[in-house]
């Protein structure tokens, strides 16, 4: 590995920027994601920052089942993210469809539309679980190199 690659890799692990996207969730996971960013839990300790656009983001944090209307938009947002990109599915319905399974406008979990790197179950996933999931994802990236 070249020195420059090492630096890039180190920087990537120390400042993973996230983009939060609601793909049809009930808002519960979304407020827990925001709660994870606010003082009590404060994921910024790990360099995690919420960004406004997919073009700045390394990790796409999705909550909720994929609805028919959101599917194409989700794929489009995923495609706008620069490589390497990672997807975290937060909540039971993002993982599998959860309580919404079988409803006519729901396709199922996030993996029905885009590839997912980490699943964080829970209804809603608590901020502690979200932090745990993000840290585990970072660890697996560290080991992968």
């Amino acid at each position, binding site marked *: 590995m070249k020195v420059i690659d090492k630096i890039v890799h180190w920087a990537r692990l120390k400042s993973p920027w996230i983009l939060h996207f609601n793909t049809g969730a009930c808002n519960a996971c979304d407020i827990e994601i925001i709660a994870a960013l606010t003082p009590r839990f404060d994921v910024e300790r790990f360099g995690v920052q919420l960004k406004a656009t997919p073009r700045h983001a390394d990790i796409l944090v999705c909550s909720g089942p994929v609805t028919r209307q959101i599917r194409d*938009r989700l794929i489009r947002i995923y495609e706008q993210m620069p490589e390497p990109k990672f997807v975290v599915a937060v909540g039971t319905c993002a993982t599998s469809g959860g309580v919404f399974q079988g409803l006519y406008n729901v396709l199922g979990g996030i993996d029905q539309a885009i590839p997912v790197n980490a699943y964080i179950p829970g209804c809603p996933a608590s901020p502690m679980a979200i932090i745990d999931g993000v840290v585990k994802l970072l660890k697996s990236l560290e080991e992968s190199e």
Partner: protein
Amino acid sequence: MTDAETIKQKLEAKFNYLKGSVRLQREKRLWLETAYDKFAELFDFAVKELGFSFLCTITGLDEGENLGYIYHLAQPGGIVLNIKTRTKKNEPIKSITAYFPSGNIYERELVDLLGAKVEGLIEGLRYPLPDDWPRDQYPLRKDWDAKVLEKGSYGEMHGENVQMPIGPKQIKGPTSFSIAHKNDVTLPIGPQHPALKEPESFSVALRGEKIAGVELRLGYNHRGIEKGCEQRSYIQDIYLIERICGICSHSHSTAYVSAVEEIAGLEIPKRASYIRTIIAELERIHSHLLWLGVAGHEIGFDTLLMYSWRDREAIMDILAMLTGNRVNYGINQIGGVRRDITPDQVPQIIKVIETLEEQTKYYIQLALEEVTLIQRLSGVGVLSKEDVLRLGAVGPTARASSVPRDTRKDDPYAAYAEMPFKVITDDHNDVYGRTIVRLGELMESYSMTKHALINMPDGPISVKAPRKIPAGEAVSRYEAPRGEDVHYIKSNGTENPERVKVRAPTLANTQAVSKMLEDRYLADLPIVVAAIDPCFSCTDRSISIINLENEHEKVMTWKDLRDYSVEWYKKQGVDFSKMKRRQFP
């Protein structure tokens, strides 16, 4: 004689054929049925003579050969008049938007989900179904089969009857959103946008910095819960309904169980209704603190976001202690509540609430004295009292325009009839007023929670509920943190409900948003939208339309834009035409 009985007499005196058929199901709930040819006259009388000035919602029912419609009208005093009527499936009904502009949304829903035909409905973007949903498939019809959506066939149905994505440009018609002048710019905002936490998409027509028109497309969060409820049992539905929205989950589940209890004739124990009230007020506290933070964030005051969300965690801890979960509490069951509040929990809760009271006093002082906050919020998103009444806004949005519309007072449920509290109103009519109202309501909620905790009667917390609910119907209203939430339940004597209809508060407020944005600066859009405390996962529907003269318009695609810029630069002496666009794999 109660007011409802007087109204019943007036109705029977005016319309002979109604004699004996007006049903007073419970206090403040009137039900009647009429043939469709006599409906218009009756509706006009109810609105103009009897003072039913607010349309809660319209419920559509599939009754085999016919489509049934129930118009739920409410009075400021809290009496709800439910007018039922029906037509054959292929016969149209007339739009009631002349009386209630807000009815447009509810009628659009009838068209999309039930295949009703509504004459005089303003054309617009579809809701709540996806853009590529076939036009001839109506999911709420009883004979509709979800098999048509299975892989392949959904694709095959992409035919002529599909309205493909997307944008207001495709809408034609005199009243639709369209660009008024050639110089206007349409700016798409959403579904993913930094200012919005939930997927919704605005098309904003801009004249300079000013907003000339707004078209709102919701439905990104539409999951089809109403249909799902019909396929699940009453007990499963509690948990599904709770997940309509994670912020007002207790609101939806309480409204639902109250309606089911009314049909089943269950009297819940007093202690249970007190516990429901306590959880409801704690939920309001967490929701209003959440809103305060989000509002701070939208105006670039992130310190406020961090402060109020830090305080909010204290409430989340209490909710987790009382119910076992931070969000989606699952405390309600049909016939009461699932968990009791133990005596040793009471002082703990009161202690936290007293700390929060001090904090909130600081926020109130901040709101009253901080010059930047006042200047940023005053005069933004103005909605006059007349507009509130005309557009049917609810909750703090209505109360900030001096309309004391509060279901807790007008139509008390749970233990609210015994709670001492003031309805907070304000006459600022703008976002600043809405901030003051919410802060005031926080203080009321603190004192109400304390009152309920101290005066909670002893006794059981639930009664046994039957698995099968007898045939019947009920409407329940609930004052969610965002405004009035309406549930209509129809049962048929089995384990599953026949129809569940939910009208979330944000749906009633979306009309008001367009009005507030009219002729305002684009930079105000985030805070104005945030000021109604939108909850689009509750709403999942659309639509609001602003009149603009329909002139010639041109859609510029990506290629057009590129060609235009190449031409423009050529005139400046730079030639970009040889440059290749980057190809995506």
